[in-house]
């Protein structure tokens, strides 16, 4: 079911959380709302869920105007960052909650709960209480609880934000696969660009209460429309209006056209990837990213003088469309 938000505005006191936000989420898609804290992404999600009422603007869910429909009747599944587990209920009863509110027959509820427990890999945990589960298990329980009522849309607010890095990576992949199986229109909020790139089919980048850019992950990375998107999605070196990805910086041992002199300040090995921190003649600091093998071939040492040139750069000039400059092509 598609979701359309038109010109949503929401203010908390003096703080403008949403400043006329419009988005379109196609049926069956997996969309990420990505932005720094305070960008309005969570507020937008809560407006879609009906947990927050916009000051103005409209929310359409599968073609119908849902703006004035209360949360309990919107048919959305909502997953909270801190799980919002019903602490006094077992895992089974948590998952069954929505169905028992709908007064479904006991047998049907039991069957559906069994089905969901195995879908979220909690077999054998049905009679436990949330306090006896790990964070990852609680979040999977919360997801099963939201899915139990067969929601039209599934909304997740920083679903992996409170989890350890390892569990987080695992659950991301799992969410992606779950979406392939269940195919419910899903929106999740995150401040982690890597998470958004990895999981989502479409990303809405938000900043200071408005949408910066919407697109597929690769599209946003390759063709950012604003400085904000350029620097928020993926690493970047900024030199005035010119933005250079660290992997687009080429290091040479000898002077060359377009290449500037720099000193190697520090070499950081991160397994496959190597980061080289550079100090330019004018005191600017840049960093270059390359594979370990490339770095080994260059035989770099701390304090060494090298020549740096960008392979390509993005230029954001005031009052102009962003343009890409192909500067030097690597041999």
């Amino acid at each position, binding site marked *: 079911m598609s979701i359309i938000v038109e010109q949503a505005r929401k203010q908390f006191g003096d703080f403008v959380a949403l400043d006329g936000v419009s988005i379109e989420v196609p049926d069956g898609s997996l969309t990420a709302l990505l932005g720094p804290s305070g960008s309005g992404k969570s507020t937008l999600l809560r407006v879609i869920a009906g947990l927050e009422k916009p000051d103005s603007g409209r929310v359409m869910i599968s073609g119908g105007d849902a703006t004035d429909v209360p*949360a309990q009747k919107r048919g959305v599944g909502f997953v909270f960052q801190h799980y919002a587990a*019903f602490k006094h209920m077992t895992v089974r009863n948590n998952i069954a909650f929505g169905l028992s509110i709908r007064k479904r027959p006991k047998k049907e509820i039991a069957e559906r709960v069994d089905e969901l427990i195995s879908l979220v890999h909690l077999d054998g945990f049905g009679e436990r209480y949330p306090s006896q589960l790990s964070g990852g298990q609680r979040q999977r329980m919360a997801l099963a609880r939201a899915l139990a009522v067969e929601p039209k849309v599934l909304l997740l607010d920083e679903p992996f934000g409170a989890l350890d890095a390892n569990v987080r990576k695992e659950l991301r992949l799992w969410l992606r696969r779950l979406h392939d199986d269940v195919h419910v229109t899903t929106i999740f909020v995150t401040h982690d660009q890597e998470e958004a790139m990895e999981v989502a089919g479409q990303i809405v980048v938000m900043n200071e209460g408005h949408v910066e850019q919407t697109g597929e992950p690769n599209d946003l990375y390759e063709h950012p429309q604003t400085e904000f998107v350029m620097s928020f999605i993926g690493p970047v070196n900024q030199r005035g209006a010119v933005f250079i990805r660290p992997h687009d910086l080429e290091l040479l041992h000898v002077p060359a056209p377009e290449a500037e002199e720099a000193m190697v300040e520090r070499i950081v090995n991160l397994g496959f990837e190597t980061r080289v921190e550079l100090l330019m003649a004018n005191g600017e600091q840049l960093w270059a990213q390359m594979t370990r093998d490339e770095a080994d071939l260059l035989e770099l040492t701390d304090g060494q003088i090298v020549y740096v040139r960008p392979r390509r750069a993005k230029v954001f000039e005031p009052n102009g469309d962003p343009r890409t400059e192909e500067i030097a092509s690597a041999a």
Partner: protein
Amino acid sequence: MAARDRLGKYGLRYFALGYLTMLLLIPVGMISYRAFEHGFSAAWSSVTTPDALHAFLLTIEIAAIAVVANTIFGVGCALLLVRSNFRGKALLNAIIDLPFAISPVVVGLALLLLYGRTGWFGSMFLDNGVQILFAMPGMVLATIFISLPFVVREVVPVLHEIGDEQEQAAQTLGANWWQTFWRITLPAIRWGVGYGVVLTTARALGEFGAVAVVSGRISGQTETAPLWVWREFGQFNTTGAYTASLVLALIAIATLLAMNSFKRKEAS
């Protein structure tokens, strides 16, 4: 260094114990000693006279009504204070503590002014044949007044602590306000409510001042257990007075133990 640490640790411990012994244990211990001074049967017969039994029954009835009223009001009021924003919230919050600030005797006198023959409400009720003062309704009003803050004050912090995400989750799953309250909020705050009920019960059972003023202290009719204790004490029936005091204390302790055992049973 270690010796000084130990001195500090044990010194504080013994000071606390000694302080409580002097102020609480010895006085209560003396009551039990004096109650059974002339044997168990003397104690028993002193508190099973018709007047005494009536006083106990009346006390329990009044306490029960006050507990129910203050629990319903207390939970509702705590929800209002924690879950909503409105003008005058700070004022409401302050007013709730009024019973802690005002002497019970003053509460009794205030009710006397309002519900007396010439009071604002008194004449209205009397014209319709309803006796408030020197009768059960007045005593219930006084008891509700003095024990009002306990449930609110126990529930408010618990509501803050559990936050409202569970309630929002219930809403998105299709629960209406009432279903959310019964199935999510109330179970989550149940031990806060429980402690509030225990404190309200203890306070209501022991109330003397306010009830003394509004009841008229008619023995066998409007005399509660604490009033009975006071009268018997004045008439030199010390065994009866001490035994009845002990029974009152035991009833209050029993409610606390009952709640703790519910809690333990649930935890296991």
